[in-house]
């Protein structure tokens, strides 16, 4: 198998690419961990409003160390700050926003994404299970995007014909930003939209578990050094 370690995008670069698709005025929920990086690459001139499950809209960056107020945290239990026009609400209202279709985008991490849009990102099946808000977030947001390395640390595909790990949601993912490509999920198929120009379609297919369809042009995935 080809090793793409030299050319693949870093997590920061994947986050940057995902950020380019967030429109001005969008309401966005970023999953805990890697997806949170997307906020750092918000496109100049666009304003996104970030939602966190524990009941805050329009929060901002982390405060300086020592300035934390531990009553003001995000879903990852990290200290946050507020922007002008923020609002607090309880958990039922917060998930009304999630399930009720009020978020424009949710961006999550993944263990596996299947070609029909199934997502597995909450359980490896071992140890203490913990789900948090993941199963809610995959339903309701107008777009459910995933940011992920294209393959596992062992080199196995994370984009698969069918998920083998416990599902987070059925047919819910609309777009995947990987370290090698941008792939939409349409009508039960992976549709390749962008790929690193250094990789051929055949090479990309070889590290992808489901068939990569091509509809029209495949654009070059060009991301700045970060």
């Amino acid at each position, binding site marked *: 198998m080809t090793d793409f370690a030299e050319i693949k995008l870093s997590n920061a670069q994947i986050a940057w690419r995902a950020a380019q698709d967030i429109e001005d005025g969008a309401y966005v929920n970023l999953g805990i961990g890697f997806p949170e990086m997307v906020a750092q690459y918000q496109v100049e001139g666009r*304003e996104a409003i970030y939602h966190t499950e524990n009941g805050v*809209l329009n929060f901002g960056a982390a405060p300086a160390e020592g300035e934390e107020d531990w009553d003001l945290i995000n879903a990852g239990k990290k200290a946050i700050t507020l922007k002008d026009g923020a609002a607090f609400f309880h958990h039922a209202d917060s998930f*009304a926003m999630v399930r009720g279709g009020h978020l424009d985008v949710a961006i999550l991490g993944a263990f596996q994404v299947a070609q029909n849009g199934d997502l597995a990102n909450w359980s490896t099946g071992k140890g203490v299970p913990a789900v948090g808000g993941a199963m809610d977030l995959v339903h309701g947001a107008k777009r459910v995007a995933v940011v992920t390395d294209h393959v596992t640390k062992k080199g196995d595909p994370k984009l698969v014909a069918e998920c083998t790990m416990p599902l987070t949601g059925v047919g819910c993912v609309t777009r995947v930003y990987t370290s090698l490509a941008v792939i939409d999920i349409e009508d039960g198929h992976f549709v390749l939209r962008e790929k690193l120009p250094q990789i051929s379609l055949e090479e990309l297919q070889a590290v992808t578990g489901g068939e990569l369809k091509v509809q029209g042009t495949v654009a070059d995935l060009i991301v700045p050094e970060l």
Partner: protein
Amino acid sequence: MDKSCASAAEAVACIPDGATVMIGGFGGSGGPIELIHALIDKGAKNLTVINNNAGNGDVGLAAMIREDMVGKLICSFPKSKDPRAFTERYLDGKIELELVPQGTLAERIRAGGAGIPAFYTPTSYGTDLAKGKPVGDFDGRSYVQERWLKADFALVKGELGDPMGNMTYRLAARNFNPLMCMAARHTIAQVTKLVPAGGIDPEQVITPGIFVNSIVEIANPQQEEVLNREGAVYP
């Protein structure tokens, strides 16, 4: 982010014939009179309106009904001091009525906003208003299954608002307004005072801006009850 609109007319211009429109308020309290009147000015036909009542006198919702803009009304209490506009059309078969218990109406609207397609309630079990609805038994008691209510538009009235759509409400004028904000695809709010973003304490926001699409300041809003006591007629 600036959801503010220059006028009520501009705010309601997007409402087409045949739309489903939630209108906040309870009796004369919390009704967005200026938005309703702007919609009357614009004109729209065959609307489905969701409101707790059916209007009173010759202004607001009653005037919409009198102008034959409403084909169907979903409400809990289509009676008032002066319900003529609705009553005449209802008895003539010119307006359809879906009568819903008040708490069920509120919960169906909330469910629409919260992505809950159906729920069970004890309300109306065994009554005419439950006819044809599925029944479920839980813990030895029977409940009626009710469906969510959504709308294309909501017209609501707040007290303070900011350009992001955050809102507060005055006294009991809150009533259905925050729920309808959640349940409409496009929510249009009139507020007595539009303040800059940050002008409302985030802890005191009742409707977070995510539920509001456009917001217009109407500095001295009219009150249906007052208009009716003055014998006002619109237009």
